[in-house]
């Protein structure tokens, strides 16, 4: 057995989970949902919680609901459920494209959207798409709940702004209104399904004259946390979605990203790949929007 010993509680209600978190005292109590990030961390003893609170039987935490202006995902909704969801492919095509790049079928069958976001792996795809589209997170404690925007939630690699007594219950991803919307998602990895070295997500809306009216763009694997490319997004608005125009703006991302060198790639390589993948994602999104 590789993980350090822990107590295990299989919770059945949100109140039970929040009470266990509130009563932790000096103990480290961790939520386990899909376990696809946490269990490897425990196997390597990088995490050694005193107690695991299993939320897989908490019914309120699973499900996908189309609420018009946004789609709400229960935090424990499986990545595979998202991949198979008609609501997601119709209403959030960027999320549908992103989720197909998450791990493998065996891990998507267990992994959840909430787990992916609260762990904050800098190369993870679902946080990237949720960040591009400015998702709202609902965090619950025994005393109440708060809603926060995802921009600013990712603090550093595997560090997110969630308090020890808080439980992520819902992820709300906005749906853009109007026509001529397209999406693009690109990543480079050693093999399909491996951790992304660099990933880019883009959603674009075109005006009647064919210029970019609205752009949402984010990049992963290029900083300790996924990055929303605010300056680059702003520069795209009003431009024709041509290669030349995107090329003229792409250097703006250099200031917004801060990649490290690691065993997979150098910082310089990540910078070069980020430029290409971001440009490609935007071009794909614009081409799809123009159809």
């Amino acid at each position, binding site marked *: 057995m590789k*993980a*350090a010993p*822990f107590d*295990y509680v299989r919770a059945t209600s949100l109140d039970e989970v929040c009470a266990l978190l509130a009563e932790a005292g000096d103990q480290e109590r961790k939520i386990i949902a899909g376990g696809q990030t946490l269990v490897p961390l425990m*196997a390597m003893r990088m995490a050694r919680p005193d107690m695991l609170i299993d939320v897989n039987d908490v019914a309120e935490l699973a499900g996908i609901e189309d609420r018009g202006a946004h789609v709400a995902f229960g935090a424990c909704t499986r990545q595979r459920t998202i991949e198979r969801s008609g609501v997601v492919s119709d209403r959030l095509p960027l999320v549908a494209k992103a989720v197909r790049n998450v791990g493998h*079928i065996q891990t998507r069958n*267990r992994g959840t959207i909430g787990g992916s976001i609260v762990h904050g792996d800098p190369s993870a795809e679902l946080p990237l798409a949720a960040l591009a589209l400015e998702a709202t997170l609902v965090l619950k404690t025994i005393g109440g709940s708060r809603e926060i925007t995802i921009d600013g939630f990712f603090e550093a690699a595997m560090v997110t702004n969630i308090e020890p007594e808080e439980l992520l219950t819902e992820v709300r991803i906005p749906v853009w209104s109007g026509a001529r919307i397209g999406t693009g998602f690109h990543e480079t990895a050693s093999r399909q399904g491996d951790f992304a070295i660099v990933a880019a997500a883009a959603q674009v809306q075109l005006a009647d004259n064919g210029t970019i009216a609205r752009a949402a763009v984010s990049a992963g694997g290029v900083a300790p946390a996924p990055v929303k490319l605010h300056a680059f997004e702003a520069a795209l608005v009003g431009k024709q979605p041509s290669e030349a125009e995107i090329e003229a703006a792409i250097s703006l991302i250099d200031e917004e990203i801060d990649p490290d060198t690691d065993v997979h790639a150098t910082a310089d390589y990540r910078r070069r790949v980020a430029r290409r993948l971001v440009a490609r994602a935007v071009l794909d999104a614009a081409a799809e929007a123009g159809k």
Partner: protein
Amino acid sequence: MSDYVEITLNVNGRDRTALVPPRMTLVDCLRDMLRLTGTHVGCEHGICGACSVLFDGEPIRSCLMFAVQAQGHEIRTVEGLTAADGEISDLQDSFWECHAMQCGYCTPGMLVASHALLEENPNPTDDDIREAISGNLCRCTGYQQIVEAVRMTAQRRRETSNG
């Protein structure tokens, strides 16, 4: 802390009970407690896919689940892919015929992943097959014969149902 917990799992159609510490993974429980050693344990942190089993019908990695979490669920291991009389399945037969293995370490995971694919999609393209086994590492075959074996199984099933 971490007192032993009694769990009951339905494994290959039979209810099985085991006394496990919470930190025991499902794959260790299957192999060491229930003596079902067909499922292999490789990397033990969710990279290699050798420990793939069906959990409520869907393929998962049994090294990334604690056995206590499987309480009350249905598990199907590679041993459960054979017919009741012990005869190997058509998929296993195709693996044999195509020589879709050498050392055999990845084979149970490959069989489980391919079995799940064919249950969901009886007419997979080669891309579908490659996607389905992409979470399973094989260091011997170069994957070609494995893809061929899955393709052959699908083709034979179509011929049987048409003929």
